């Protein structure tokens, strides 16, 4: 048993110290990012509704989240009398822990790469632990609305995890890696514009992933677990003060993480024009800027959707995941396989070489054929799914006809 390298103790101490520093940075950065994000969302949605939003505390209201953080921290910490005290206390901890773990493997631009080989899966594994926190909060509160909200949230998260992970498969097939850093690096072709979103399969994957991510982050129109017009505040009903703030923090940090992941997977992460030309440090800073711009643009899209689309019903939500997203995502995996075959297979399929020439990054004939074929497949799939899901007049129930909803 002496063949494995034995790392010296002081190296371990160094590793531990570096890890602690990193974790602190992630925690502080994540909380600050979340604060900025709340301000950003409130200002953006205010302008969508012809208002101004918070602009009093600090310059342009930037310190509003700080004042709110102080407010929540100084509030009384209440636990319901008949609640399960330990579970009630641990639920926000589990939520926040799961979120912070997800931040561990996100590459921030090209400056801070992450080294885990299965980073993408890791993120979704730990994000899946949110369900546990939700159920703990819902059950530990000893409140009907909290339990309903928790159950709704869990059902939603479990349902939407399937299209989420399936939408990820095309990217893994295209890049051949599960590491986020590798995936980002492989989108650096064509002067930094080799993003996966520019291919038909990548675009389909991006759209489906984005919708599923909305549900995973409990954003409107999928905020059914916290539907305040139906079940008070869902699993947050019995939480106040600091614990509520932790839930809130975890929620926004999850959204931030999802935006970062989408920017990395589909929009090329820190890749952009001029990153490779500027060298390591300057190019790294530029990539960081690109990365944040992409992530914030994605979050703006989320806010825009929140400002537009009303909340779905529970059965609509489930139907959308299982009847609409899942078939499209499955077909997209298939068409990604075709894309990979057409663009990359040389000796495996001699017939492609005979028709379109050797596979190379400047063989535009192969890319053109691949784009046309996958586009046709995806469009056909979307059309078929829409056709199947469209309700015919004969599908209407007697009650609906009696209610006059048939028109």
């Amino acid at each position, binding site marked *: *048993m002496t*063949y*494995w390298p*034995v*790392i010296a103790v002081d190296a371990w101490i160094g590793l531990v110290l570096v890890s602690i520093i990193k974790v602190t940075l992630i925690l502080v950065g994540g909380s600050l990012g979340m604060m900025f994000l709340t301000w950003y969302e409130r200002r953006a949605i205010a302008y969508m509704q012809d208002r101004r939003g918070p602009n009093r505390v600090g310059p342009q209201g930037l310190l509003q989240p700080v004042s709110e953080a102080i407010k929540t921290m100084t509030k009384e910490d209440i636990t319901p009398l008949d609640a399960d005290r330990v579970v009630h206390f641990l639920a926000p901890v589990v939520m926040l822990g799961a979120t912070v773990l997800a931040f561990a493997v996100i590459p921030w631009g090209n400056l801070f790469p992450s080294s885990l080989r299965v980073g993408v899966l890791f993120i979704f594994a730990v994000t899946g632990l949110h369900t546990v926190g939700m159920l703990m909060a819902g059950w530990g509160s000893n409140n009907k609305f909290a339990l309903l909200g928790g159950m709704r949230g869990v059902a939603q998260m479990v349902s939407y995890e399937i299209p989420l992970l399936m939408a990820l498969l095309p990217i893994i097939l295209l890049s051949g890696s599960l590491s986020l850093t590798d995936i980002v690096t492989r989108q650096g072709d064509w002067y930094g514009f080799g993003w996966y979103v520019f291919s038909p399969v990548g675009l389909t994957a991006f759209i489906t992933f984005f919708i599923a991510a909305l549900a995973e982050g409990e954003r409107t129109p999928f905020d059914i677990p916290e539907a305040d017009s139906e079940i008070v505040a869902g699993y947050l009903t019995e939480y106040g003060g600091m614990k509520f703030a932790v839930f809130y923090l975890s929620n926004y940090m999850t959204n931030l993480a999802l935006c970062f992941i989408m920017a990395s997977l589909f929009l090329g992460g820190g890749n952009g024009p001029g990153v490779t030309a500027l060298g390591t440090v300057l190019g790294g800073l530029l990539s960081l800027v690109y990365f944040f711009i992409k992530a914030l643009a994605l979050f703006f899209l989320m806010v825009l959707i929140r400002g537009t689309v009303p909340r779905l019903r529970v059965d609509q939500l489930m139907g959308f995941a299982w009847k609409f997203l899942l078939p499209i995502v499955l077909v997209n995996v298939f068409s990604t396989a075709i894309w990979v075959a057409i663009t990359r297979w040389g000796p495996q399929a001699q017939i492609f070489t005979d028709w379109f020439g050797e596979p190379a990054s400047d063989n535009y004939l192969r890319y053109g054929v691949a784009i046309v074929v996958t586009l046709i497949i995806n469009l056909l799939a979307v059309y078929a799914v829409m056709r199947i899901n469209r309700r015919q007049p004969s599908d209407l129930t007697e009650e609906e006809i009696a209610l006059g909803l048939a028109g």
Partner: protein
Amino acid sequence: MVGTIPIAWVLTLAAGLFCIGLFGALSRRNTVGILMGIELMLNSVNINLVAFWRYLRPMGTAGLTFTVFTIAVAAAEVAVGLAMVIAIYRARQTINADEADTLKG
């Protein structure tokens, strides 16, 4: 980096987990509790598989593959088992194993 731990320790850990699961599966009245005990036992088996793979054949993939299969089978087992628990509850209003003792449905 796991090389400094003797394999026997890992196997003992797995054995302990297995026995705990066995006790749970044998002593619980609640059917869901029994299922949880079985889950513990399956996990200990997985630990064994991974340990043997890591210590004996790290270049091969037999241990990993078998663990993946075990996890899949365990998931299927839990799904069916819990469905049965719910069906039993619906028929008899109890999920205690010692109260569901007739064959009549």
